[in-house]
């Protein structure tokens, strides 16, 4: 167990170093000069001398790249990710505010797409070759070829423009102070983006679970269960769920990167004020500090997902769990 923790901490540190370096180098070599690009901006104009100096130290071309990187890294480790020029606030604060919206959106999509995809996948796999299976498979292949932002546009046309059921954008009604936003309002604005993200997320998990189900259904132990008189449904309940749920949850945790990527596009389509929208704004507006901050936050999220997937795998599979225990005892 101690070894498991240690390996993962090392992995995390190495990966974060890599991610931060790549991110920093990428935003730094950009021909979009942040100082120049932001000269006309209110944030830059209202900045104190000290802040400007700090900005120059971060992004200024005078300082060598690696020195700038270590300056930035040192500050980042103490929690200071710099100032967002676009939002005129510390990057950490912008991320914290926006992350809540994004996490709500992603959590809903994560759960809905996971549950739906899992069920569709299991039944498609267990009843392979039937009409149901073919419909599920067709749906999944079609969705895998559908750009998520286009699907968002489609839902927007149907539900917001034509039917008028949902608002056209933003996570809260315009002109209402955030303290007055009711939970229902929030849900109302969350519904369409979450639906878009859920519908696309189904494809991956359903196809994967379908394959796994086919594997399980042709496994020796299912053959044996059949020979003992169990029906397909009973086999799914007795052996299917047990053997299929973990791969599905693992995959779902491991696909956080895709859900995050999807949320960037969906947030843009629905003007949903989350991290994704902020990342796009930062990228278009030359807000290097915010862009780097969001990139690192997303990488941490992805790493967290993968880590949970790994841990869950060990906890549930008795072969791994028992071996862990015995190796600890030794």
């Amino acid at each position, binding site marked *: 167990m101690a070894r498991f923790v240690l390996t993962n901490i090392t992995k995390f540190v190495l990966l974060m170093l890599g991610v931060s370096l790549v991110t920093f180098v990428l935003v730094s070599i950009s021909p979009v000069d942040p100082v120049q690009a932001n000269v006309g901006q209110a944030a830059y104009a209202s900045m104190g001398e000290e802040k400007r100096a700090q900005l120059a130290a971060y992004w200024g071309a005078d300082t060598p790249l690696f020195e700038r990187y270590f300056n930035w890294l040192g500050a980042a480790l103490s929690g200071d990710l710099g100032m967002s020029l676009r939002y005129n606030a510390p990057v950490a604060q912008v991320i914290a505010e926006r992350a809540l919206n994004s996490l709500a959106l992603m959590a809903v999509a994560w759960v809905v797409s996971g549950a739906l995809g899992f069920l569709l996948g299991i039944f498609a796999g267990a009843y*392979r*070759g039937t009409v149901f299976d073919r419909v599920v498979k067709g749906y999944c292949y079609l969705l895998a070829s559908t750009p998520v932002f286009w699907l968002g546009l489609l839902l927007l046309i149907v539900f917001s423009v034509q039917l008028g059921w949902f608002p056209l954008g933003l996570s809260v009604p315009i002109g209402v102070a955030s303290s007055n936003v009711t939970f229902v309002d929030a849900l109302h604005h969350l519904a369409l983006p979450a639906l878009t993200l859920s519908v696309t997320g189904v494809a991956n998990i359903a196809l994967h679970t379908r394959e796994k189900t086919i594997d399980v259904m042709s496994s*020796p*132990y299912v*053959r*044996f*269960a*059949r*020979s*003992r*008189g*169990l029906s397909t449904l*009973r086999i799914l309940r*007795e*052996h299917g769920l*047990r*053997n299929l749920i973990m791969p599905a949850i693992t995959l779902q945790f491991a696909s956080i990167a895709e859900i995050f990527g999807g949320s960037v596009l969906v947030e843009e389509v629905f003007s949903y004020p989350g991290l994704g929208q902020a990342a796009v704004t930062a990228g278009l507006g030359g807000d290097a500090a915010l862009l780097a901050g969001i990139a690192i936050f997303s990488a941490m999220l992805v790493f967290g997902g993968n880590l949970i997937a790994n841990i869950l795998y060990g906890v*549930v*599979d*008795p*072969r791994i769990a*028992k071996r862990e225990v015995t190796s600890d005892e030794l």
Partner: protein
Amino acid sequence: MTMARSKCEPHGNAQPGVKPTTESTQSMQDPQALHDQPRSRHGHAHAEPHGHAQHLHGEFHHHHSHAHTSKHPGFHHLLTVEGLNVAFRMYDPQAPFFRAKQREVEVIHDLSISVHEGEIVAIVGASGSGKTLLADSIMGLFEPNARVSGVIHFNGERVGADALRQLRGNGISLVPQSVRYLDPLMKIGRQVEGVGRSDRDQAASRLAKREQLFAHYGLGPEVADQYPFELSGGMARRVLLCCALMDEPKLIIADEPTPGLDLELAIKAMDDFRAFADEGGGVLLITHDIELALRVADRVAVFKDGTVVEETDVASFASPDSLNDPFSRELWYALRFEDMPQTQAPVEDRTEGATTAPAASLPSREEG
């Protein structure tokens, strides 16, 4: 033998419409029968009063044999399989790639075998030659792309695909080969208990039954809380047997139940099956191991090229003269490390066109 035969009545007569005789006129060595039997035997199977299968074969004078333990209570067999064919659709592997047509490949053709109460019948053939398909067919487990036909009787009843499905775990039980046939994520106890065919109110009685079986087969109570990967080979074998016995079967199909055991251990392991048979059950032992088959079985069916070429009493293996099929005789010589006498040329392998002389390639025992 006499006793067995008298119980075996009424043996089907070859000619339709002719009532079964009260005393079997067909004995193992009756040369007359050889000429009497028409090639097709299926025409009669349905007309029989007890759905009793015919003991007829065009090539062997007696379609199946009897050992002294074979019993025919109620004048019928426990299991008869007649004219079983299993074919698959696949691309012709020999044709050029783009011109290859899909065709049906018969893996089992015209196979017949029977099991009496109280006996172990061994079906012996090379691994991967389709013996497991036979087990699957008897349990009504069919591959989606398979075409399966044949006449199967169980306990005197003609059984179709639906009835075979009903018999799984409810008359016929499988003892599989290895621990791979257990769900790796389910505890042994629960797995052996199973859920039974009907309902959960049985749970308590199944638990009691499982504990009783574990006690009988020397499996400690702690085994119930273990997972399959923790079982030793010998434990796994007993656990798998317990799974089958939970459902109180009349017929056990044992598919290579002693993989990797050396002969003496394998024979000892077969004691449990012997005990089951002695209490009136029937065992169909599927194996690639002819030595094991000859030591533990009452009768042996030699499986080759997708069919049973000879089904005979183990005693017939005492001498090559009592074996009818050339391949069985080859086996006889192979077992004694002797060459076939020159007068009996080795048969040509139909598929390969190569001569198949077992003696020349007598392999060592290996894991199934």
